[in-house]
């Protein structure tokens, strides 16, 4: 294992910030192309009407709300995990927190766009905002969508600050090593950070307080997202298990996304010496726990439904178990449980590649899970005469693809602008980490006296 001086750490972690490789530009262009196509698709939809999507009577929510839940769930990768690790003082967390928090901010921003994308009249989305208008009416606080509005905005503000505050010292670091225009920009971004003990102390205290605050916010966000469903008397939605089930699923998919991002960053930004097998190992164990927990939740949900045998719910149950949605359901079970659990449980397979594969299937599986929560219930409500189907159109698929590539693009750009590993925190950690996760620093001779 290589040993690194602080200077080398600086060099390694700031290297991705300079220069754009051809491979980078090409993939950015590709991702941007898809994202632009998604924007075009959205404007086309807003202009023509939601009819260009595959939504129909009685399935009024489809891909868009699936994506909404999925992205909000994914956003639990960062802030929540990072906050828990911070509070529990898990020292191995340090190279991981920022790439996790970035996922939160971007996934949350993207997720928060979907309720607007899916509106029939998106230009009136601002009516959710409680502002005094000449119409003299206010939003309805009974609506879970309004709770969403408050919860997501709180979470977004908290996450953004949670991400940005520890970036300030790193901006100062970049500032000191940059020249020209870049220096000016980073000088502005560093906000005049000098690194006095007072600044450090306040920053650490603030991060501690934020970590305490953000955990209940994160839990509430996904609980409220689950209540978007659970508050409606729709078969298999109206369930008390939904809030913890969604929070569990969110953390599950969040860790998977984080692992996936870490694996990619490690490969493409050459961070092999920073994102170590121990990180994948530890997060992989966490992922295993979440996978089992997720299975426990879905088992509990299915079991109670099946025993309950209620006239309203059984059609949805059977449609997913062996009806028209069964292929998706069993794919989900494979992706979320049957594939990842052996990979993550067997130590030999819990390698970086192994966890990345497991994470990939989990991301797919969790997307399917969101879809399977929403669509089969809507298409099999109480009056059998009103049963229907749903089939997405190119517009929805493009927008969905656009958000995935949008996230990847934002991530790429972010990692080009900000060190994706919190340098100062890493350095602090070097003085504390257990041996296995230590980046060994060659002790330097004390300067001549």
């Amino acid at each position: 294992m290589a040993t690194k001086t602080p200077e080398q750490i600086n060099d390694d972690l700031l290297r991705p910030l300079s220069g754009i490789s051809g491979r980078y530009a090409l993939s950015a262009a590709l991702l941007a192309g898809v994202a632009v196509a998604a924007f075009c698709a959205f404007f086309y939809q807003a202009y023509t009407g939601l009819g260009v999507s595959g939504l129909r009577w009685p399935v009024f929510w489809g891909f868009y709300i699936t994506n909404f839940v999925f992205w909000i769930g994914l956003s639990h990768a960062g802030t929540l995990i990072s906050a828990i690790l911070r509070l529990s003082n898990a020292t191995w967390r340090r190279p991981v927190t920022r790439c996790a928090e970035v996922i939160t901010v971007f996934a949350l921003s993207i997720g928060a766009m979907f309720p607007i994308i899916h509106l029939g009249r998106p230009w009136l989305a601002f009516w959710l905002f409680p502002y005094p208008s000449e119409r003299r009416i206010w939003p309805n606080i009974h609506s879970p969508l309004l709770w969403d509005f408050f919860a997501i905005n709180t979470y977004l503000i908290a996450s953004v600050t949670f991400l940005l505050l520890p970036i300030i010292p790193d901006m100062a670091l970049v500032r000191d090593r940059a020249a020209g225009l870049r220096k000016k920009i980073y000088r502005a971004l560093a906000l005049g950070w000098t690194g006095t003990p007072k600044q450090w102390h306040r920053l650490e205290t603030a991060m501690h307080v934020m970590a305490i605050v953000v955990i209940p916010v994160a839990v509430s966000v996904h609980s409220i997202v689950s209540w978007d469903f659970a508050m409606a008397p729709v078969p298999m939605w109206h369930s008390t298990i939904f809030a913890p089930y969604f929070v569990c699923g969110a953390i599950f998919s969040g860790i998977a996304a984080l692992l996936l991002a870490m694996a990619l960053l490690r490969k493409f930004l050459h961070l092999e010496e920073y994102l170590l097998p121990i990180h994948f190992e530890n997060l992989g164990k966490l992922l295993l726990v979440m996978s089992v927990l997720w299975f426990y939740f879905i088992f509990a949900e299915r079991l109670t439904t099946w025993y309950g045998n209620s006239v309203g719910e059984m059609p949805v149950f059977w449609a997913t178990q062996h009806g028209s949605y069964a292929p998706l359901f069993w794919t989900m079970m494979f992706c979320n449980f049957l594939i990842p659990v052996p990979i993550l449980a067997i130590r030999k397979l819990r390698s970086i590649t192994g966890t990345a594969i497991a994470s990939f299937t989990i991301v797919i599986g969790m997307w399917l899970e969101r879809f399977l929560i929403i669509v089969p219930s809507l298409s099999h409500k109480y009056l059998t005469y009103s049963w229907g189907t749903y089939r997405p159109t190119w517009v929805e698929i493009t927008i969905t693809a656009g958000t995935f590539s949008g996230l990847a693009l934002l991530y790429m750009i972010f990692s080009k602008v900000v060190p994706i590993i919190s340098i100062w925190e890493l350095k602090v950690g070097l003085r504390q980490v257990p041996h296995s996760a230590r980046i060994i620093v060659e002790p330097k001779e004390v300067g001549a006296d």
Partner: protein
Amino acid sequence: MPIPPAIYGLFPDPDSAERGMNALNRAGISPRRIVVMSAEPFDGYSFTQMDERTPMPWLAPMGGLVGGILGFLLARLTQEAYPYPLITGGMPLLAAWPTGIITYECTMLGAVLATVATLLISTKLPNWKPKLYDPEVSHGKILIGVLDPSDAARPEIENRLRGAGAEKVKIIGVSPAS
């Protein structure tokens, strides 16, 4: 505002910085004039122990309280008081559970905002004005120095800093005339 005159040493590691700090303290320099800068926080060293008292852990709940009250009022007043209660045919216009949720979220938002505001105000960030700084800090050096040293004390401070293990000692902002 121009950078104030200062004299500082750059220390390669916290142990030498600790010695530098002790040296300055022994020299009887007011702690308020001593400047410390580092590229990472050092806990458990005396040179970082200044300014540790902060009301932040108290201000956050206070902010939360304010946010919560505002959230509660927002939920309540917008539904019932201003400018007229909507007609809902006997259905409740305001219910405890949703109000609780809105209040909860606003409480959390208040706490977050209070924390961030406390941080920024107490550390006087953002502040882009020129001030004492040395880019060497970001290369891992620890800066310990004295602001506005009197001409008389300058050589002694310099010696003490060097004696404690400073790699470099720099003097800035002193007019040649003085």
